[in-house]
């Protein structure tokens, strides 16, 4: 391992949170609503992750993302469990890629339930694909300075031409 004992690595306690133990069909069927519900924390986490390029520095943002997903899935479970299950079953059996196109009816039922109970519309097509701005309170990271060695001395002046026919002149 390249990590020495002086390098900071978060402890197990810091890293242990209840994880989302859900299958891909659940993720796929709630993806749009989940993404919209947790839009801000997701953007915060992804911005941190891309700016810092260091998973150690975005642990708290990541925990927030997972907590938000728990919150949303709990709300769905409380109010729309039957509709969600129906939709999820359909997605689960909808082809090799779990496409949405085969499940419009159950999707409409689920969307209506989410709209009624959580007051959230399905985001429009391309909502997550487009470039979105996010204002964050986290300061922009500055890389620690790269200390370079002393500059090498300049090369000698080669612009002065010598005449080989006069013999060596620099001696």
């Amino acid at each position, binding site marked *: 391992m390249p990590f020495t004992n002086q390098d900071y690595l978060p402890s197990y306690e810091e890293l242990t949170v209840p994880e989302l133990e859900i299958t891909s069909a659940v993720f796929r069927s709630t993806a749009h609503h989940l*993404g919209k519900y947790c839009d801000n924390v997701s953007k915060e986490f992804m911005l941190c992750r891309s700016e810092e390029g260091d998973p150690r520095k975005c642990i708290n943002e990541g925990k927030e993302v997972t907590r938000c997903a728990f919150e949303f899935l709990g709300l769905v479970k409380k109010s729309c469990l039957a509709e969600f299950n129906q939709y999820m079953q359909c997605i689960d059996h909808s082809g090799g890629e779990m496409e949405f196109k085969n499940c419009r009816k159950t999707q409409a039922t689920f969307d209506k339930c989410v709209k009624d109970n959580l007051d959230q519309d399905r985001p429009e097509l391309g909502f997550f694909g487009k470039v979105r701005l996010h204002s964050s309170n986290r300061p922009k990271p500055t890389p620690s300075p790269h200390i370079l060695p002393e500059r090498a001395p300049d090369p000698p002046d080669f612009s002065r031409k010598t005449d080989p026919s006069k013999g060596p002149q620099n001696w």
Partner: protein
Amino acid sequence: MRTDQSPADFRNSPETAATTAAIEVKMVVYKQDLPPGGGFDPIEWAKRTPRKRMGGFTQFFAFVGFTTAAWVAFARNKAKRDREALELRDARIAIEPFILAERDRAFLKHIRKNRDEENELMKDVKGWETGTLWGEPVYHNVRDRFKRASLEEIITHMSPKDQDDFLWDKMKR
């Protein structure tokens, strides 16, 4: 009839009997091949052009019509497919943070486990420092960036089965 034969002899002779039998057999009726009544039709020697179904303009505009319809159908189909693909891509983008957050935590846990394992394994070796090669750092890391461990370093302390699973999973991706 020969002159030395009586009429009775002639009647009873074998040749006469054969001839009489031959006459009694029904004769084959031959019919001569003749032209049909009224004679043959006149020989067709002139060129016969097929009946014209569509003129050039009709054909051309039919072609244009079919092609335009096909283009329209293709464009509509493609737009539909693109919409569906965009929807799927949206879903994938939307759940990326949730998966990445969990993955980061798992990865950091694994790295920490590896470091603890190396401490435990090399505690009796004199002069060994964890994360370095006999005190020399593995990476030139002046700016204190996150060090990306190589594949071998990640899987070193796994069991052979876990190593196999990890590599197989990586290969599939």
